[in-house]
């Protein structure tokens, strides 16, 4: 595939595709809803879970904030690995300075964990 030789044609294509794709999708969604899914709201249909049972309370309160805190703490160490892996792969050719920098990095992450521990975020209440 070749793009037309004029440089502006390339940009025009960019913009056209970029605008047309999401707008086209939205248009298709609207058409679909208009043709096949006219809104017929009812208490049953608007229920939180469409499983035939009546939900008790709001779905939002079912999750404790602790789930979320655990996820964040997991994220810290998840991302840590991202940086440790290239470091480990190139370990043989790296200097002591690199080791020191990496230790400082791990120390800072560990500080975050210690802080969360100290604040009691690791205890399940």
């Amino acid at each position, binding site marked *: *595939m070749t*793009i037309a030789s004029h440089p502006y044609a*390339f940009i025009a*294509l*960019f913009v056209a*595709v*970029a*605008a047309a*794709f*999401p*707008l086209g*999708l*939205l248009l298709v969604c609207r058409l679909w809803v208009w043709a096949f899914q006219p809104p017929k709201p009812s208490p049953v249909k608007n229920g939180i879970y469409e499983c035939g049972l009546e939900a008790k309370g709001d779905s*939002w309160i079912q999750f404790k*904030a602790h789930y*979320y805190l655990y996820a*964040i703490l997991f*994220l810290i160490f*998840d*991302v840590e690995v*991202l*940086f440790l892996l*290239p470091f480990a792969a190139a370990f043989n050719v790296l200097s002591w300075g690199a080791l020191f920098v990496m230790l400082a990095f791990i120390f800072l992450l560990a500080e975050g964990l210690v802080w969360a521990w100290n604040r009691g975020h690791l205890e399940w209440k």
Partner: protein
Amino acid sequence: MTIGLYHYLVLAVTLFAIGFFGVLLRKNTLIIYMCLELMLVAATLALVAFSRFNGTIEGNVFVFFILTVAAAEVAVGLAIVVALFRRRGTVDVAKLNALKN
């Protein structure tokens, strides 16, 4: 047809545009977050493609840091949503209108 730089770029721009329109049109904060992430991923894809076709390593290194920043951004964003939900009971941006003249 071989897949070249232009194809990656068109894909990246398309992803970026989907994310952008999502941020503008969606009302649920969590969906907006996903669209924000989509915009970052689009930039990441462009960087990786450029890195591959330029033959330089900087783009790949950039991506490592973008992933970290995106993770941090999600952490902060979700914290804000949790704080907001506790006070307002909603995450619908159309209902956030306490700040007015």
